[in-house]
C-alpha cells in the first residue's frame, strides 16, 4: 500500500515532463523484459535458425557445402530405410503407450481422490515416485531385470510360466514391449498428479448432483468428471506426444536401439548421425526439423480435436 502512496506524487509531478505514467510503466516493463528476451533470442531462436541453415548443407565433419538441391537432406530422409524404421518405432510407442498411460493415470487419480481412502499420501507418493528416478538409472535397472539371466526370467521360470529364459531385449517385439512397459512405469504417476490437481478444482456438488440423479459411479466418472478434466487431458496428451516423439533415453540405455535398429527411436538415430558415426550434422539438423514439425502438427491436431471452447 505504502508503495503506491509514494509513487503517486512522483508521477503527478512529472519531473522531466516527457512521459506519462503509463508510458513510464510500459518502459520499465520493457527494460525488465529485455534481458530475458535477449537471452531467449540468443540461446533459443538463434540456434534454431542456425540449425535450419545447417540442414541445407551436406558434408562430413567440418567440410560442409550447400546441398544440391537445397532440400537434399529432407529428400534423403525419404530414402533412408533406417529413418523410416525409427519413425515407425516411435509411432508404435506413441500409439500404444500414450493412451494406456493416460487412461491408467486417469483411473488412478480418480481412485486416489476418493475421500474415504486410507493411506492416501502414501499411495500418491508411491505412484509419483518413479518419475523422480533418473532416466538413466531406471533404464539400467530395467535392463538388468530383463536380462536373459535377470529377475523377470527367474520369476517367470519359478512360477512355471515359461520353460526357458526369454531373450527380452534381443527380439524386436519383446524389446519394444520392455520400452513401453518402462515408459508406463516411469510416467503414469507424473500424469496422475496433473489429474489429481485438476480433480481438486471440480466442484463436489456436480458429482453429488449426479449421484442424487441416480448415476452409478461409472456414469459419474465418465459423464461428469471426465468432461470437466478435458483441458487437463488435452495438456497431458500434448505433453506425452511431445515427449514420446523425442524419446531418447530408453532407446539408448535400455536396448541400444537393437536388435538391428528394431527398437531405435528418431532422437536416438539423430544422436547416432550427429555424434557416433561420421558426423553428418546437416542431415542430423534436417532430421531434428522433421521431429519438430511432427510434434507441432500433432499438437495442433490435438488442440483442434480436443479443445471445443470458443
Amino acid at each position, binding site marked *: 500500500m505504502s508503495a503506491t502512496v509514494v509513487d503517486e506524487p512522483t508521477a503527478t509531478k512529472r519531473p522531466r515532463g516527457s512521459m506519462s505514467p503509463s508510458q513510464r510503466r510500459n518502459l520499465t516493463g520493457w527494460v525488465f523484459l529485455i534481458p530475458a528476451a535477449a537471452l531467449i533470442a540468443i540461446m533459443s531462436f538463434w540456434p534454431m535458425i542456425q540449425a535450419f541453415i545447417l540442414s541445407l548443407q551436406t558434408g562430413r*565433419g567440418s567440410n560442409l557445402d550447400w546441398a544440391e538441391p537445397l532440400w537434399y537432406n529432407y529428400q534423403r530422409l525419404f530414402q533412408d530405410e533406417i529413418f523410416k524404421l525409427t519413425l515407425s518405432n516411435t509411432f508404435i510407442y506413441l500409439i500404444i503407450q500414450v493412451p494406456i498411460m493416460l487412461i491408467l493415470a486417469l483411473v488412478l487419480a480418480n481412485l486416489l481422490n476418493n475421500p474415504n481412502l486410507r493411506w492416501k499420501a502414501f499411495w500418491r507418493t508411491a505412484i509419483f515416485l518413479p518419475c523422480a528416478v533418473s532416466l538413466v538409472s531406471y533404464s539400467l535397472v530395467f535392463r538388468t531385470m530383463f*536380462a536373459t539371466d535377470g529377475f523377470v526370467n527367474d520369476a517367470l521360470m519359478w512360477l512355471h510360466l515359461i520353460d526357458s529364459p526369454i531373450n*527380452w531385449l*534381443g527380439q524386436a517385439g519383446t524389446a519394444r514391449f520392455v520400452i513401453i512397459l518402462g515408459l508406463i512405469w516411469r510416467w503414469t504417476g507424473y500424469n496422475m498428479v496433473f489429474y489429481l490437481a485438476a480433480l481438486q478444482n471440480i466442484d463436489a456438488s456436480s458429482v453429488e448432483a449426479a449421484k442424487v440423479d441416480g448415476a452409478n459411479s461409472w456414469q459419474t466418472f465418465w459423464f461428469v468428471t471426465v468432461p470437466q478434466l478435458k483441458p487437463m487431458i488435452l495438456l497431458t496428451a500434448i505433453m506425452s506426444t511431445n515427449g514420446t516423439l523425442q524419446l531418447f533415453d530408453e532407446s539408448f540405455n535400455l536396448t541400444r536401439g537393437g*536388435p*538391428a*535398429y528394431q527398437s531405435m527411436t528418431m532422437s536416438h538415430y539423430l544422436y547416432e548421425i*550427429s*555424434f557416433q558415426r561420421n558426423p553428418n550434422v546437416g542431415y542430423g539438423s534436417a532430421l531434428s526439423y522433421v521431429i519438430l514439425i511432427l510434434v507441432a502438427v500433432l499438437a495442433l491436431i490435438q488442440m483442434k480435436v480436443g479443445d471445443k471452447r470458443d
Partner: protein
Amino acid sequence: MKNTRKLTALVSAGILALSLTACGGGNSSDGASSEGGGDNTLTVWTWDPAFNIFAMQEAEKVYQQDHADFKLDIVEVPWDDLQTKLTTIAQAQSWDELPDIFLMQNNAFQKNVQNYPDLVASLDDSGIDFSEFPDGVKAYSNVDGSQYGLPFDAGTAVTALRTDVLEEAGYTVDDFTDITWSDFLTKGKDVLEKTGKPMLSGQAGSSDTIMMMLQSAGASLFDAEGNPTITDNATLKAAVEQYKELVDAGVMVEVNSWDEYIGTLTNSTVASTVNGIWIVGSIQTAEDQSGKWGLTNVPALDGVSGATNYSANGGSSWAISSTGDFDLASDFLKSTFAGSTELYDTILPEAGAVANWILAGDSDVYAEPQEFWGGQAIYKDVVEFGTKVPSNNTGVYYYEARDAVSAALTKIIGGTDVDTALAEAQSTVEFAMQ
C-alpha cells in the same frame, strides 16, 4: 535516488545477461590446453584409471627423471564422451579447448583425422621410430602415408581357454593352437557334449567376432579405394557363415549385454573366449579360477586366401592435438611409450598393458610365468602374436559398416538368407556414404 536505483537495476540486469551469454558461449578458460611453451605441463585426456591413466602416470614419472619440472595434468574422459567432445570442438572450431595429448580408439582414427584435418598433428617429424611398431597396429592411425597416432594398447586377439573344462573333454590348449574354425567347431561340439559347456559367448548384435575373423585374413569391409565391399566379399561371407554355424550348433551362445558376456566368463558358463588381449583383465577378476586358464592364438578361416591365426580387436593410440605443445609432447611420447622398457616393465604386471612397442617384448617382465594362466608366460606369447597380425583397412566409415554388418548378422541368425542380408547392409553403408 529513484533514477539511480533504476540505473543500478538495469546495469545489473545487463551484467547478468552478459555473464549468462558468456557461459553459453563456451567456458574456454578451464580445461584448455596449457597454451604450449614454457610451463612444462601437458594436459592429457584418457579414460581408464586402472589402465591407460595409470600408464600415463607411470610415464610421467619416467620422464621426470630427466626433466624435473615436467608435469602432466591428466583428465579422465570416458571414450564415448571423448569422441563427442572431439566432434563438438571440431565442429565449433574451438581448437584451443583441446588437450595436448589424448588417447583415441584405433577404429576411430581414420574417421576423425579425415573428417577434421585440423584435429590431430602428424607425428612424421616427431623423431619417433615407427619401424619399432608392428604394421597391423600402425595402419589404424596412418592416413595417406602419414602417421598420426602412437600405438599404445594392443588389441591383439587371443583365444583364452579353461584348461580344466578342456581336460574333462580330453583336450589341451595345444589342440586349439594353430587350428581352423571348422576344427574349432568340431572340437567345440565335442566339448559341449561332454561337459555341457559351450565354447564361446558373445554379445548379440555385435560383430566383433566377425571383424576379428576378417582381420585375421587381412580383409575388411572396404576396398583400397574406400568403397564398401560387404557383398562380393568371400572372406566376409565365410566369416558370417562360420559364425552362424557356431551359433546353430550351440557352440557359441549369444547374450544381450557386455555385463552378461563378462558374466559367462567369470561364472564358468563357457569354456573359452576369443577377444583382444585386454579381456585378460576381466577374466582375472575371477580369482577362484586362478591356474585354470590357458591362452593361445585364434582359429583361422577355412578356404580363405591369406587366412592366418592372428588378429586384433580394438586397441588405442596416443595422439597429439593440433594445438598441443608439439615439441614437448612428442619428446615425452618418444622417451616413454616409444623408448622406455622401464615404463613397460611397470605397467605390464600392474595394469596388463601389453606393449605395441616391439622392443618392450624383450623385457624380462614379459617372460615371467603368470600364475593365473597356469604358469604360462602369456605376455611374451601375445607380443609375438602381435607382430604377425595382418593389417587391414578400417576406413572412414568403419563404424557405419560394422553396425550394418551387425544388423545383418542379427537377421541372418534369425533366419534371413546370407546374401539378402549382406546386400541390405551394403546398401545401408552406401546410403550413409552419399
